[in-house]
């Protein structure tokens, strides 16, 4: 059965068409399953999207952030190069005389062959490393409950690739020897690995070589086509899912939540309680997962033993989607099927069976999972969508959450303190309200903590000092200010959030405000990235960026140095959500003598303080440690005098953590505004 000769070529074509046909058939089914999802527009800004594909697929930018990612880099590119080689192999299968050098010339072909050899060799090395990691090192991040099946899958994939490469080298080695001295055949010597392999075949006759060649060629071809068939059923589904997922990735800010249509009278249900209620893009995420485990490796909930692991969530959702999707497509009337077979996949509840309640409520929306996912999977809105269902449809949440929601409803702050006292913190301070003077340039949006919490009020007054010192024209809303509703939204209460947002937009716009400063990263993110959904059109600044600008412009000049050790903690909602990593550091660097050190998990990998996503208002009883204690412990390892923060909630979380370690007397938590205010004013006194 010599490849490319009759009747072998007919056989090959049949196999090839069958395998591809099967692949297309399964891929189409996957596509149809995706289409069960809800519509979502991800077709805007296409050139930007293409650029992402170049950077993150071809360039593997996110993958190689981690050392293990380099292995993937080689496997990926090896695969691409091998695929180019495979085309030639397939060509030969149809007609034995097919060869690249006939089109490309010998020089280019030599180069291509060399590359192929090099990458194939690199792939072999990378695969061995992968095997070593999986079976010897066994990192936590590769752990799944169905470990056997997952390992089996990995072994099949790795084995197939190894086999494929060995067979490729075999075929090439034989071909090299056959090409020697035969007119009309050519094999570049530059492919030195293949050439080296040929030493295995020395001494064989031409027929012998021919037989080996045929054997390796067929073996290689069958493995490749087998691979093609196997992909959609394996974790290498990501080969299909990842590229479109990078293309369709979210270009707006991380974790931006969609605006629900609450006016729609025909809506029967809100939020997501069935997998097909996710959008197609949210479902595509599931296909794209590489099961690399980086998300969970950085997830504060996972790392403190909460019943939440983003990697497992995605894995479970994927399995459920595939199992349920097929059944839904196969039989109309899914509901009856569910009642007919109460054990079946259709009868399994998304919330309760596939995802657990505690899992959904454990997420702090810190964004570490999304930030670290090589294929831009968006975990947060899945949790929030399911929370939306629980809150809006079932009012199913803990009593503390109900308490805080009522407090927002009646007094527009989470503690339920009288709304009329919201502006009282500013009594006696040199601050005007917009009602007194609406001609000011900036609105200082104080937020709930800055208005009501004794601790955070100190941050507010420090900021007031700084703004006055720099001669900024600003005012506050005072008692007219309302909560921005950010946390209500993240807790899934979109209804409450929308009414709060609409109200606040109206108040702020009634003063013709154009620019806003705030010291709360949550309010900042919400006003800046989510309020435009409600017709807001403002420039919004977090005090860290605003103060950094004032320092650069010389409007603020810190005089007094500070001989202290400081550890800085990045707020998730500033860093990962809004890319403000340098600005708070600029502020701290302006202070003479302040030595600051960075924790291992800092900047885009910063570990959450535990307050986000509404966790600030819930008791933390699950897991083996409180998230804020874990983070405080990380900071304490650097033996600081001060923990520097830029968020009132982080402040509380660290102060609380310090109490746990009985270190609250020795280590203090300060907001960057407090530190700067001290440096700016203390020299004057």
């Amino acid at each position: 059965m010599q490849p490319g000769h009759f009747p072998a070529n007919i056989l090959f074509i049949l196999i090839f068409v069958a395998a591809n046909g099967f692949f297309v058939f399964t891929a189409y089914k996957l596509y149809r399953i995706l289409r069960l999802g809800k519509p979502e527009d991800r077709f805007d800004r296409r050139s930007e999207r293409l650029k992402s594909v170049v950077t993150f697929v071809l360039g593997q930018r996110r993958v190689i952030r981690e050392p293990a990612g380099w292995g993937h880099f080689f496997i990926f590119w090896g695969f691409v190069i091998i695929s180019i080689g495979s085309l030639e192999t397939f060509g030969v299968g149809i007609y034995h005389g097919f060869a690249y050098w006939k089109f490309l010339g010998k020089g280019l072909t030599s180069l291509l062959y060399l590359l192929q050899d090099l990458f194939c060799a690199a792939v072999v090395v990378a695969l061995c490393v992968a095997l070593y990691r999986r079976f010897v090192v066994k990192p936590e991040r590769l752990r799944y409950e169905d470990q056997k099946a997952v390992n089996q899958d990995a072994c099949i994939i790795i084995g197939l690739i190894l086999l494929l490469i060995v067979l490729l080298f075999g075929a090439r080695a034989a071909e090299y020897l056959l090409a020697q001295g035969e007119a009309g055949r050519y094999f570049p010597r530059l492919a030195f690995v293949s050439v080296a392999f040929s030493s295995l075949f020395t001494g064989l006759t031409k027929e012998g070589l021919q037989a080996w060649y045929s054997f390796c060629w067929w073996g290689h071809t069958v493995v490749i086509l087998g691979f093609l068939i196997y992909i959609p059923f394996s974790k290498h589904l990501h080969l299909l899912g990842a590229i479109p997922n990078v293309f369709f990735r979210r270009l707006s800010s991380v974790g931006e939540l969609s605006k629900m249509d609450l006016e729609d009278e025909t809506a029967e249900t809100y939020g997501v309680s069935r997998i097909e209620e996710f959008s197609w893009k949210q479902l595509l995420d599931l296909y794209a997962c590489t099961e690399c485990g980086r998300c969970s490796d950085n997830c504060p909930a996972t790392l403190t033993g909460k019943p939440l692991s983003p990697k497992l969530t995605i894995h479970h959702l994927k399995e459920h989607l595939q199992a349920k999707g097929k059944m839904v497509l196969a039989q109309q009337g899914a509901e009856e099927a569910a009642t007919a077979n109460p054990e079946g996949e259709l009868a399994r509840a998304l919330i309760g069976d596939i995802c657990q309640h505690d899992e959904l409520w454990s997420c702090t929306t810190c964004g570490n999972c999304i930030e670290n996912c090589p294929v831009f999977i968006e975990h947060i809105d899945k949790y929030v969508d399911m929370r939306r269902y629980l809150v809006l449809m079932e009012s199913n949440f803990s009593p503390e959450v109900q308490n805080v929601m009522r407090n927002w409803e009646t007094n527009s702050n989470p503690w339920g303190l009288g709304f009329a006292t919201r502006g009282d913190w500013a009594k006696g301070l040199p601050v005007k309200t917009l009602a007194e003077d609406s001609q000011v340039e900036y609105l200082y949006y104080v937020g709930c903590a800055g208005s009501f919490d004794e601790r955070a009020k100190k941050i507010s007054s420090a900021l007031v000092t700084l703004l006055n010192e720099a001669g900024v024209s600003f005012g506050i809303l005072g008692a007219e200010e309302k909560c921005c509703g950010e946390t209500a939204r993240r807790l899934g209460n979109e209804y409450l959030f929308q009414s709060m947002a609409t109200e606040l937009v109206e108040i702020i716009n009634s003063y013709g405000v154009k620019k806003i400063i705030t010291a709360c990263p949550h309010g900042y993110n919400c006003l800046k990235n989510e309020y435009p959904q409600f017709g807001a059109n403002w420039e919004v600044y977090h005090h860290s960026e605003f103060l950094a600008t004032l320092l650069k412009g010389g409007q603020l000049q810190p005089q007094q140095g500070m001989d202290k050790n400081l550890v800085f903690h990045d707020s998730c909602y500033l860093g990962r959500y809004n890319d403000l990593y340098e600005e708070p550091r600029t502020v701290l660097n302006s202070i003479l003598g302040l030595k600051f050190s960075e924790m291992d998990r800092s900047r885009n990998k910063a570990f959450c303080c535990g307050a986000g996503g509404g966790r600030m208002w819930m008791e933390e009883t699950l897991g083996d440690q409180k998230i804020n204690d874990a983070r405080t412990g990380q900071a304490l390892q650097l033996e600081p005098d001060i923990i520097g923060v830029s968020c009132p909630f982080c402040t509380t979380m660290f102060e609380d953590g310090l109490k746990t370690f009985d270190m609250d007397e020795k280590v203090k938590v300060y907001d960057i505004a407090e530190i700067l205010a001290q440096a700016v004013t203390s020299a004057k006194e």
Partner: protein
Amino acid sequence: MAQGVCVITEFREGKFRRVSFEIASEGRKLADALGEPLLAVALGEGVEAVASDLGGYGVEKVIVVDDALLKDYRAETYVPVVAEILQNLSPKVILTAASVDGKDLSARLAARLGAGLATDCTELQIEGGGLKAKRPMYAGKAFAWCEWSDGAWPQVASCRPNVMDCLAPDTSKKAEVEKVEVALPAGNLTQVVSIEKDAGGKLDLTEAEVIVSGGRGMKGPENFAMLEELAGILGGTVGASRSAVDSGWRPHADQVGQTGKVVTPNLYVACGISGAIQHLAGMSSSKYIVAVNKDPEAPIFSKADYGIVGDLFEFLPAFIEEVKTLKSTC
């Protein structure tokens, strides 16, 4: 023509309740101001034997209905009887106790007699020949002075227990007792099915009128015994801050605050608690707040009605002694 002041006493288990003496004393004051007699109505099983004692508090005459059917308060027996007596007496002013039963009785009487009722009064005066009553509203955040419309007799006021001064009884004085026999309606519309003593268990925080809470300043679980003692004397229960709970000193059920219990007792005593907003969110609606903390800057003081700056380990024992003394004298 309406005449005199009449107090409706509460008699349970062979004794007048203390509040009956309080309203009798208050009634005396009002009767003097009006220059009119002070009468009383006493219902109960065995009340006849002690009815004349009310004289010690200035009551001139007691109308007594003594019957086994009147052992417990029940609207269907008490209300018609008292209403009938009052219609005959036709007093200007009627005083009742703002106890659980007294509230039911007074509201029903007022409805039956078509009278105006001021509940839970803390101060009563006679002005212009009629009653003027002060009562708290908005959970004590405001006080209202109530007056009755011209000719709207009788004027009914229920008095908050433990507030009005109680005269020292003049045991030499006895009130005239007038026993009336009435056919009691055999009421069975409401019934006490059972009374279950709380199984020695702790009074739930959300039901307690007095809460004594401890925080990290308590230094250890053993010191909560002091708080237990204080709470015991005050008829309250013990709460804790989250720090105290996290340290394992108290169970989570004791946690007061944002993520614990939201409580609104009449009195909240915070010992060694700094007053983080998460804690305040759970107790700032308490009627009165006492803070004991050695740090004068602690935010709890900004919410406290009475602040004690000092070491709680010195202060609490002294305070417990004081409260004990107070409780033993009344």
